[in-house]
Every structure is written in C-alpha cells, then in structure tokens.
C-alpha cells in the first residue's frame, strides 16, 4: 500500500485522497464505475489506491455489479458515477437494491458548490431523485465531513435491514484540503426479540398441526441459514423459500418444498395456503407470494421475524411479531421450541408432491429452456457455482430447476424485476468471489439490455459463463398475452443477433447449441474456458410457457399447476 494511505496521525490531504483511503479502510476491493468531469479528483486519487476499478459501459451496470458483489460476498458493493446523467443512470440499480435489501454504497460526483442549483452543466438533484430509493443519502458540503460520511455510509448500508446509500460530493469538496485521520468503525449490535413474544411464538410453533417455515432473503442477509436448518430439523417443519431466499435452506433437503409464489411449486403454495401456522423469517408477504390477500392462508396464524418493523403486519397481520435480527431471534427461539406432531401434515404434503411435481418433457429436436437449465445444474452442481439470473421466464425456470443448497449462490432481481440485472451482477459476483464458478442465466431480451458489460468482463479477463436462452422474444410478456389477452401478441417478438458471434466480437468465447443432444458438450467447452468470458447461445422452444402460475392478484386456488398440454386437469382447489 502506498504511504499516502497509511497516515499514523492527522494528516493534511486532499479530501478525494482521504475518501479513497477511507474506502480502503472499509475493505473495498473493487469499485464499479464510469468516470466523468466532476468525478476526476476522486479518480485521480483512486489511481494510487489498492482498489480495482471496473470500467463499466453504463452506470446502471455499475449499480447491478455492485449488487452482485454484495450478494456474493455479504459486504457492501461500491459503484461510482459522475454528476448529472452518470448519477441518474444509477437510479434503477439503487431502486433494485432497495427492494432486495442489498448493501450498496453509491458515490456520485456533483458539480462544484457555486454551480449547485444554477442548472450548471451535468447538474442533477441526485439527492432528491434518490431519496425514495436509498436508505439514506448525503450531499457533502463540508470537505472535513467527507471521511466521516463515508464511514457512516458503509455502516448504514450493512446494518439493520441492509440497503443502498448514496454519497454525493461536489467537485470542489473533493479538491479541498482537509485534516484527516483514520477513524474507527462503529459496530452495530444485532437486535434481539422481546422474550415474552418469543415464548408465545415458541408455544404456537410447538403446538401447530400444519406449520410451515416461510424463509426469505432476510435469512441470507442476517447469516441465519444455519439457525433455520436447526429449527427445521428440530421441529420437522416443511420449509419453503422465496425467490430471494433461495439458498437460505438446502433445496435438495427432504424438508424443503421448494420455492413458493406465482411460479413456485404447486405443493409449496398448497402447503402455505393449507397451513395453520406460518413462521415467516426475513420475508415480506410480497403480492407474488400471497396472490389475492383475502383468500391467502385463511386458517393460518403468523409468526413474523423481521429486522424491519415496517414489514411486520404491513401486508399480513402478525399474531406473533418478533422484531429483531433473524439470526439473533432464531438463536433465542431454538431452545424454547418443541417438535410439533407433523406426521399427518407430511402425508398430505407428500400427496401434493405426487399430484403436481415440477416437471417438463424434453421431446423432439427443439431444446426446452427447462431442460437447458436442468442440464447445466446437473453438470455443475458439484462445482458449487454462483448463479445469477436476469428477469423473465428463464428467471422463473431457474428458480424452479436450479436447486440451491448454499446462501449467496442464487443472485436475482426479486422485488423490482429489473431486466438487465443478470450479466453485470455476475461480473460483480465474480470479482467478489474469484474462487467460484459464476454462471449467468439470461434471456435474449434481458441480455440485450446490458450486454455491453461483456466488454468490461473481457477487459478484466473474468471467466464468467453466460447462458443466453433465446426464445426469440420477451417470453414472460408473451406468456401473459397468451393466457390473459386472447393470444393478441404485440411487441414481444425479437429478431436477435447471433449471440455467439457477438460474444466473439467483444473478445469472449462464443458457443451455440440448437439441439438437446448438443447441450452437454457445448456446456463442457464453455466451462473449459478460463481466461475470458464464455457465452453459450441456446436456441430454445419459443412458445413454452412457465407453470405453475396464477393470474396476478388472483387467489392461489386459481393456480394452473401444470402446463395444460401435459394434463387435462390443470386447475386444483386446495385450502
């Protein structure tokens, strides 16, 4: 490390240099950014810092890459943009991080203070624009406050319910000289639940007849996966995970009923709806989980564990609210809980599993997207890959067929559903976890939203694997037009480039699979590439729809459990 980053006592330095040194002190290893005029003082300081800067080709990609880094490592990801359009381009990524509780520190440069509020070149009120999509944001007007603000930004992003924060710094603040010394990081203590509430919740769990553990992304954020496993095994309560909670509980375990929700397993949804006690841990009763709220789990009481008090009772009344850090609360709860008698409940669940298993039929010469995902999972599962997805049909098939046994290995855009998330998130994940195989499952529509990230990945020689499942269209939109708009297809067909050639043009390796029997060999060739990204263009069946599914806003009873082409009895009624 350069001597300028090791001050022993108060030193007089440029604020930008102090900021870079604070970033180093916070453990930042990578910054995902794009430079510009107002940010140059900070870029100049970063030149000497032991931090790798990834030059992204759009600031939205920078924000998603920071998310991928954060989700793969558990540490805040950092993105950096210049003033005006650079800063505004971050907003989608910040909104995504806000909804998915991902710790991201965004740094934006701002025009010099005399130009603030004067409509100067590349001036934007980024504080006002990002207030609704950040936990907190700061406009630093006093250069002396810059190092402390950076420390506070990292503390806040990672503490409590994690989320994005933004530090906006005018150019002249970055250029000012300040007195600086390295500060200590204040640690936050985990929030524990009220003991009386805990005993009541434990009694309810111990005496439930049809309980279910409903596990969300908060379990991964708080590092509570081991506690969830202990609770499930002690009580033999079935476990369902949300999209964001995938990996929080091993999906290959016998107690797992897989993901629930609009495209979750039929048996997970029936179990949730038929339960008498929902133990929600770090989950927020999203509308894609509950469907029509009035008919959701009508006989269930709710134990709700969450670090964010806002979530408790926001959608579904909590009979046993436990406000606190999921890990700390489960550690408190475990000794108090006895095992309920769930034998009959498990018989019912096994019957539902037999009635409507997750399945597909790979027949003929055209590759089904489910088969493409399932094949890759079988081929790589022993390598414990980290997978990122984009948004759309392929995301839901990945959620169904890519079984995760480890937290932090399924990275997706859950709350905001941002097309373009997957590839930059994979880049960030690979930077944070260079020891792991990172695979991006993508669709042809979503890949084209941020595909310029390939250039950054090639520059950084990252051995990402990118699987583009090409069904020649916006599959999920097409599915909705198919099922709910009388097959009036409009603006969903895509005339795509040859993605393998496109990858090669960027300097990555490109492969193509058109037939089911080609897939494994093509995957093996892509996996063998270690010095640059490898993209596999998989031509898939364009008309395949994703099931189970229920119409948005409707009751789970309206769920189409299987593709109607597989079975005549597609509608099940359970409650």
């Amino acid at each position, binding site marked *: 490390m350069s001597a300028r980053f090791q001050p022993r006592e108060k030193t007089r330095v440029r604020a930008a240099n102090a900021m870079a040194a604070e970033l180093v002190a916070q453990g930042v290893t990578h910054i995902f950014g794009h430079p510009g005029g107002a940010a140059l003082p900070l870029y100049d300081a970063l030149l000497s810092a032991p931090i790798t800067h990834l030059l992204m080709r759009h600031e939205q990609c920078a924000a998603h890459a920071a998310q991928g880094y954060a989700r793969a490592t558990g540490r805040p990801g950092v993105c950096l943009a210049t003033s005006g359009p650079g800063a505004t381009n971050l907003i989608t990524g910040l909104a995504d991080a806000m909804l998915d509780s991902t710790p991201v520190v965004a740094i934006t440069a701002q025009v010099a203070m005399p130009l603030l509020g004067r409509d100067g070149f590349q001036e934007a009120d980024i504080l006002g624009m990002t207030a609704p999509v950040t936990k907190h944001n700061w406009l630093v007007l006093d250069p002396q406050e810059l190092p402390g603000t950076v420390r506070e930004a990292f503390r806040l992003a990672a503490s409590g319910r994690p989320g994005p924060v933004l530090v906006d710094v005018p150019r002249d603040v970055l250029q000012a000289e300040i007195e600086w010394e390295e500060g200590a990081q204040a640690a936050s203590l985990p929030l524990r639940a009220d003991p009386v509430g805990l005993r009541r919740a434990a009694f309810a769990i111990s005496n439930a007849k049809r309980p279910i553990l409903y596990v969300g992304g908060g379990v991964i954020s708080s590092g509570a996966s081991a506690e969830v496993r202990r609770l499930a095994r002690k009580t033999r309560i079935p476990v369902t995970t949300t999209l964001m909670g995938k990996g929080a509980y091993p999906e290959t375990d016998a107690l797992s009923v897989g993901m629930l929700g609009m495209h979750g397993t039929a048996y997970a949804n029936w179990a949730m709806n038929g339960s008498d006690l929902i133990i929600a841990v770090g989950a927020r009763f999203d509308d894609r989980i509950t469907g029509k709220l009035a008919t959701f789990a009508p006989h269930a009481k709710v134990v709700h564990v969450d670090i964010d*008090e806002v979530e408790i009772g926001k959608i579904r009344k909590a009979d046993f609210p436990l406000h606190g850090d999921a890990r700390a609360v489960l550690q408190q709860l475990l000794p108090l809980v006895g095992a309920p008698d769930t034998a009959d409940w498990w018989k019912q669940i096994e019957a539902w599993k037999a009635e409507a298993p997750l399945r597909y039929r790979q027949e003929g010469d055209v590759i089904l997207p489910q088969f493409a995902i399932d094949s890759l999972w079988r081929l790589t599962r022993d390598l414990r890959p980290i997978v990122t997805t984009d948004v759309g049909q392929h995301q839901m098939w990945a959620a169904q067929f890519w079984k995760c046994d480890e937290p932090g290995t399924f990275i997706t855009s859950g709350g905001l559903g941002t097309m373009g998330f997957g590839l930059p998130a994979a880049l960030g994940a690979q930077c944070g976890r260079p020891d792991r195989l990172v695979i991006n499952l993508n669709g042809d529509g979503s890949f084209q939203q941020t595909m310029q990230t390939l250039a950054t990945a090639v520059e950084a020689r990252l051995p990402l694997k990118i699987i583009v499942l090409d069904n020649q269209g916006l599959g999920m939109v097409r599915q909705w037009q198919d099922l709910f708009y009388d097959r009036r297809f409009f603006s969903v067909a895509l005339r795509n480039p040859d993605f393998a050639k496109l990858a090669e043009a960027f300097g990555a390796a490109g492969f193509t699979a058109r037939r089911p029997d080609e897939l494994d060999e093509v995957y093996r060739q892509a996996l063998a590439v270690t010095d640059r990204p490898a993209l596999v263009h998989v031509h898939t069946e364009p008309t395949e729809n994703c099931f189970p599914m229920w119409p948005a806003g409707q009751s789970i009873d309206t769920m189409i459990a299987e593709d109607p082409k597989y079975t005549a009895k597609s509608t099940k009624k359970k409650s």
Partner: protein
Amino acid sequence: MEQIFDITVNDVPGLLARVESIFRRQRAPIRSFFFEAGEGRAAHLTITAYAEGDAANLLRKQLMRLVDVHAVTDSGDARAFAQPESLFTFIEKRA
C-alpha cells in the same frame, strides 16, 4: 380520520422531502404542517394528515426508518387532540 404526528428530527437538507414522500406514498394527504427549529440540528415537526388506523401505524414505522428521525409521537385523532388522554403512542428508537 385526521391524525397528528409529532416528529423529532435532525434538521438536515432533504429531510422534509423524505418525510413528505412517506405520506404521499401511503396516500395520506397532509392537512397541516408545522416546523420548529431547536438547538443545534434538533428540530420538531407536527404534521396533521388523513390516515386510518393501520395506515397511521405504518406511517409511524416508516417515519422511524428514516435516519434523521429520532422519535414519533402519534397523537391520535386530531378531533380529540384537546383531550390529553388521547395521546397514546410514543416510540423512540432502540440503540
């Protein structure tokens, strides 16, 4: 019904916009708004807004999520504000 929220805050740039956006997103129209600066950065907001029971509770919790909000006193129905016994909730942040 109209509810009164007494909010203890840090007076920092952007605070009012953050507070207002919470009421806007919960579709709780603000009927009156009073701001009083105190010592240093401390300040006090008194907001009267339309909000039914559950919505008022959610508003209070969302206000508490803001970094620069220290305490929220939900004083209940504005029409009964003259009655001291109507003051029912005081929430302060836990460390």
